[in-house]
């Protein structure tokens, strides 16, 4: 029995390896995910580090600078470049032409000398994310000046300024270096699900809907081979391609995080343990069989090549969306979650990436459940191939 399966497997493998165009586009699709991630990291990192740069002088237009000379002098010493007041500060800030502006009221001097809180107004647009860093820098400096003057006034009255500070708040951060990387790495399962499903999809669709459309399925099925062997041969042929896609994805992520000097961009050292990536690959293997069987069923049902491609294209969303949800709503990797194929594995993948200890029982349960489902789906696919509709189409 295996004999014919081997013959079919070899032919499908050879045929698809020769399909340079599909292989090329699959490769491109696979690398797209990691490349986009790299691009985002570099872009955001660059922007954030530039904005945080206290070395660069911040341009601050001030109206009424003449009312608060010592405040202005303080600001200049803190690397703030004071600019003359603009025509209409509010409109400029709202448009984004100015990030922040300061307005000092004429009665500032009077209030200040009398020991009353003297008003300074910060003009900002809170809906502009990009300006927030400039705004907080100005706010922090004004608060620092206020505290400074406040402390001096208390000292002048013979009171120790520390009396006003009832608590000293300290923070002890227990996050591991890997978990600091959380935000970025949480997208990995999402991209992996797409890689997993795209790698073998072309092979399966071509071998089923494609064969029917090209008119080569009918003569093929006239050969004295049980339908089951055709299904198995075609399924098995898709697996190396799907596995290769995952492998390339993981290697790409490994290169991004371990080789590219990311700390230059975001000031943070990210790394993924190569052993963790190997474990992730192993965890993905049962899912490859599941994905291939599902695709086979869809491609057999579809009326034609285009339909098959469309439905198979939607397939990755089913496992990927819950995975994406994990990035925002963390779920613990408990045994019951392992009973959900693809969801359990994504939890395990997250654990491997964060460097958390992974339970062997979880891995085994997850793999078994997935494989059992894959076998059931394969049997369904074989039943579909037995039907007359396989020749007739719809």
């Amino acid at each position, binding site marked *: 029995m295996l004999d014919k399966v081997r013959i*079919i497997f070899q032919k499908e493998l050879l045929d698809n390896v*020769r399909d340079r165009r599909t292989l090329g586009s699959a490769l491109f699709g696979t690398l797209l995910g990691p490349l986009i991630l790299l691009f985002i990291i570099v872009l955001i990192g660059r922007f954030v580090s530039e904005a945080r740069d206290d070395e660069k002088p911040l341009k601050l237009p001030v109206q009424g600078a003449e009312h608060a000379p010592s405040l202005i002098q303080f600001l200049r010493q803190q690397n703030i470049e004071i600019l003359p007041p603009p025509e209409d500060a509010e409109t400029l800030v709202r448009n984004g032409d100015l990030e922040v502006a300061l307005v000092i009221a004429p009665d500032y001097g009077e209030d200040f000398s009398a020991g009353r809180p003297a008003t300074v107004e910060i003009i900002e647009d809170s809906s502009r994310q990009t300006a927030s860093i400039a705004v907080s820098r100005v706010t922090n400096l004004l608060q620092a000046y206020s505290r400074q003057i406040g402390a001096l006034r208390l000292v002048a009255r013979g009171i120790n300024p520390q009396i006003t500070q009832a608590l000293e708040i300290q923070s002890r951060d227990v996050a591991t270096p890997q978990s600091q990387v959380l935000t970025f790495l949480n997208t990995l399962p999402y991209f992996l699900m797409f890689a997993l499903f795209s790698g073998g999809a072309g092979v399966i669709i071509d071998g089923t809907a494609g064969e029917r459309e090209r*008119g080569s399925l009918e003569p093929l099925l*006239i*050969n004295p081979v049980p339908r089951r062997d055709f299904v198995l041969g075609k399924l098995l042929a898709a697996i190396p391609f799907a596995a290769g896609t995952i492998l390339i994805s993981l290697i790409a992520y490994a290169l991004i995080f371990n080789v590219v000097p990311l700390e230059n961009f975001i000031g943070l050292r990210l790394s993924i343990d190569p052993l963790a990536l190997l474990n992730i690959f192993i965890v993905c293997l049962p899912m490859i069989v599941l994905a291939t069987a599902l695709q086979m069923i869809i491609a057999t049902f579809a009326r034609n090549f285009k339909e098959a491609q469309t439905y198979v294209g939607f397939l990755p969303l089913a496992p990927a969306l819950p995975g994406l949800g994990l990035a925002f709503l963390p779920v613990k990797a408990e045994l019951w979650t392992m009973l959900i194929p693809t969801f359990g594995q994504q939890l395990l993948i997250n654990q491997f990436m964060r460097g958390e200890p992974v339970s062997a029982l979880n891995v085994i349960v997850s793999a078994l459940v997935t494989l059992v489902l894959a076998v059931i789906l394969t049997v369904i696919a074989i039943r579909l191939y037995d039907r007359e509709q396989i020749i007739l189409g719809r």
Partner: protein
Amino acid sequence: MIEVIDLYKSFGPVKAVHGVSFTAPDGRITGLLGPNGAGKSTTLRMLYTLLKPDSGTARVDGFEVAAAPLEVQKRIGALPDARGLYPRLTARENVRYYGQLHGLNGAELEARIEGLVKMLEMGEIADRRTEGFSTGERLKVAIARALVHQPKNVLLDEPTNGLDVMSTRAMRDVIRRLRDEGQCVLFSSHIMQEVAALCDQIVIMAHGKVAASGSADELRTQTGQQNLEDAFVSVIGSEEGLER
């Protein structure tokens, strides 16, 4: 030998094959003649075991199509209406694949493929990928892969479809050669001349039924017509769907 006994097949309300019976003996060319929609292809598909008869029997060399499909498939070589090739494989690889699926391999398989390459004059195209082959070239590959396992029964569905004059003549030579080697040849056509030129025995089908059958002489006598083509038309009822 192919025996068809009282075969019925419907698709929903469409009665594609409605009580068809005939026998195609070994060493003879039997033609299924009829307009499009007569039920020729459906009958052939039941013989290839791709469709199951609703009722009735069909046997190839004694084996029943419904009960022993694999045995039937081992004993037939088919050129169905759908005769697509694998564009990324060479002509030789296409034929080899089907040979392997029939359980052949090694030197014997290669020798047979080479024999077919020579017989069908495929020397120039044998090791080219079939992508971009002309209709005639595709047909040669399709025939080769149908014959690589030397089947005793050869079933051809409209074999000269889309062929030019030269290729049509070559096709007829192949069919006659198979008959001369003792195989049972069954082919379907809607071209009267084709059937008249080749067939030892003719089964005329229309509307899912057998309208008449017999040798060319017998049909002329039965219908009282001078020439075969007029005989066909009188049996079927009109010229519609037939080609001279």
